[in-house]
């Protein structure tokens, strides 16, 4: 947790990502197919970061892509996959199975308690007694203890202090106030506890308009604001756009082997130097209109999932 009161936080994507050191403890905003900071992840790969300690709840593309791009050293996450939509996160799986990343699988609820310890300014927090799960053996830092007042059995979990949070949101002002429409997930908490907070946004708005909207994340918790329309693509950023199932399917197809996924990285990351180029590559205006068309009516919305 670091307080940052710089009055102008507008950054280019490259400059924002240069704030991330190799080996940093990084927390990832969004959930599953919703509002993942995808464009920031693509720049992390383009910049050739190494050995990141990724700490995350339930995700799909962001974690899978980071594993494909070989930027992860330790994966402390609770779930990585595409559920009954597109199945397993194949790059994540390969990285774990071949020992490229250290598997430190964790649990959404435990992780939250560790984040809250940092938020509350305490070195650890107790949880109701946990036991019997082999997941606990991956975390010797979790300790069995007793309540000093009642004697009840507890499990203690230490605070996690992330170096960096990466988040995609709807809008921000240049001072760094951030507005998220709809479910916030853990994003506000991540912004509070991380030392550096990089937020890509669909749109930069005036401070006056932000005051009217009432920000979700106060400016003093953020470090860098990067204007990046469609920065969550191929995950959804409702109400602006739905997720791009066809693109995710293409990624999963490319992900069948370590060799083929390089073609995906080449096309959508290394050869795509800016956001405009990327948006053209994914299908340009036609694709953008389709992803925005979900709110026409229910049958059009269902098309998104076919």
């Amino acid at each position, binding site marked *: 947790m670091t307080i940052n009161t710089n009055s102008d936080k507008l950054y280019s994507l490259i400059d924002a990502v240069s704030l991330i050191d190799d080996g940093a403890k990084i927390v990832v905003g969004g*959930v*599953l*197919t*919703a509002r993942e900071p995808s464009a920031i992840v693509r720049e992390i790969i383009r910049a050739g970061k190494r050995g990141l300690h990724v700490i995350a*709840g*339930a995700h799909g593309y962001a974690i899978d892509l980071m594993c494909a791009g070989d930027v992860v050293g330790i994966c402390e*996450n*609770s*779930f*990585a*996959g*595409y*559920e*009954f*939509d597109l199945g*397993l*996160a194949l790059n*994540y*799986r390969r990285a*774990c*199975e071949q*020992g490229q990343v250290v*598997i430190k*699988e964790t*649990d*959404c*609820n*435990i992780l*939250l*308690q560790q984040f*809250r310890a940092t938020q509350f300014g305490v070195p650890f927090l107790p*949880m*109701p*007694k*946990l*036991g*019997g*799960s*082999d*997941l*606990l053996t*991956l975390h010797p830092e979790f300790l069995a203890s007793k309540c000093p007042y009642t004697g*009840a059995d507890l499990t203690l979990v230490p605070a996690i202090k992330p170096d960096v949070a990466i988040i995609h949101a709807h809008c921000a002002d240049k001072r760094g106030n951030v507005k998220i429409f*709809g*479910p*916030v*997930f*853990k994003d*506000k908490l991540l912004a509070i506890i991380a030392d550096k907070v990089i937020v890509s946004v669909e749109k930069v708005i005036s401070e006056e308009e932000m005051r009217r909207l009432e920000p979700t994340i106060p400016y003093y918790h953020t470090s860098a604001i990067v204007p990046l329309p469609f920065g969550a693509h191929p995950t*959804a950023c*409702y*109400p602006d756009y*739905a*997720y791009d199932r066809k693109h995710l399917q293409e990624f999963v197809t490319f992900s069948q082997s370590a060799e083929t996924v390089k073609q995906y990285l080449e096309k959508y990351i290394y050869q795509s130097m800016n956001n405009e180029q990327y948006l053209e590559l994914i299908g340009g205006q036609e694709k953008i209109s389709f992803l925005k068309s*979900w709110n026409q009516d*229910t049958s059009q*919305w*269902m098309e998104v*999932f*076919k």
Partner: protein
Amino acid sequence: MKPEFYTVDELVIVCLARTIKENDVVFNGVASALPFTAMALAKQTHAPNSVFLGGLQGAVNPRFPFLPPVSVDYTFSIECDLTIPAEEIFNLANSGNIDRIFFGGAQIDKYGNANNSIIGDTTAVKVKLPGGAGACSISCVAKHFTLWNTRHFASESARKRGNFTFMDKVDFITTVGHKTPAGTRREMNLKGGGPDAVVTDMGVFDFEESSGVMRLCSVHSYTSLDMIKACTAFDLLVSDNCHQTVPPSRDEVALIREIDPLNIRKRLFAAEQLAAQMKFGD
């Protein structure tokens, strides 16, 4: 239009819904196609006052226009009572106020321990599964949970290879059942009650009180006790009043098809299982 027949996916969902009681607080996070359909069905039938906590978007009582194939989507939050931050859901779990949650597993043992993490050994990982999301902790604290699996049936060749989902010992315990190498739930002082139902593509199980061992209660109409025994790697405990699974009603199946018009539920089952069209009991 009233349905003429039902299929295994619809039967499994109805069996899952039957594990939800009126006024229960029910949560499901990821891999939610079957649980969400069952939760919506229960609210529209026997448990209208159950509290449906839908996914990591914290949608309270979502009334989704259709079931999408993913667990976090605006379809769940566009029309619900409200959305609550994810931390509030976990607060409810830790304070003992989640009555029921649903957990799947790539491997399940006779005590209801489930593996969502690693096949093989932690030092020699054969398959990295997606992970348990909140299953490790919530299986310790939720009042009850329902285990489910749609790959109980094992083909003859799978059986010959010893390839079973219901195994004597799972490679890795993510989700905690009634007894683990670290002891029973009572010995470990866990506050949650553990699994009290298992719904599979072959039958429905509960757990014997004294031993904490899974016990077959009902057999789905298109299979048999012998076949379930053949597809289960551990010795099967069978309830004294084991019977054929009560078929769903036409209304229940009509509701399921309305809740899930994209047929997401069918993706979890093998084609040959879906081919069996079963008649209603009426």
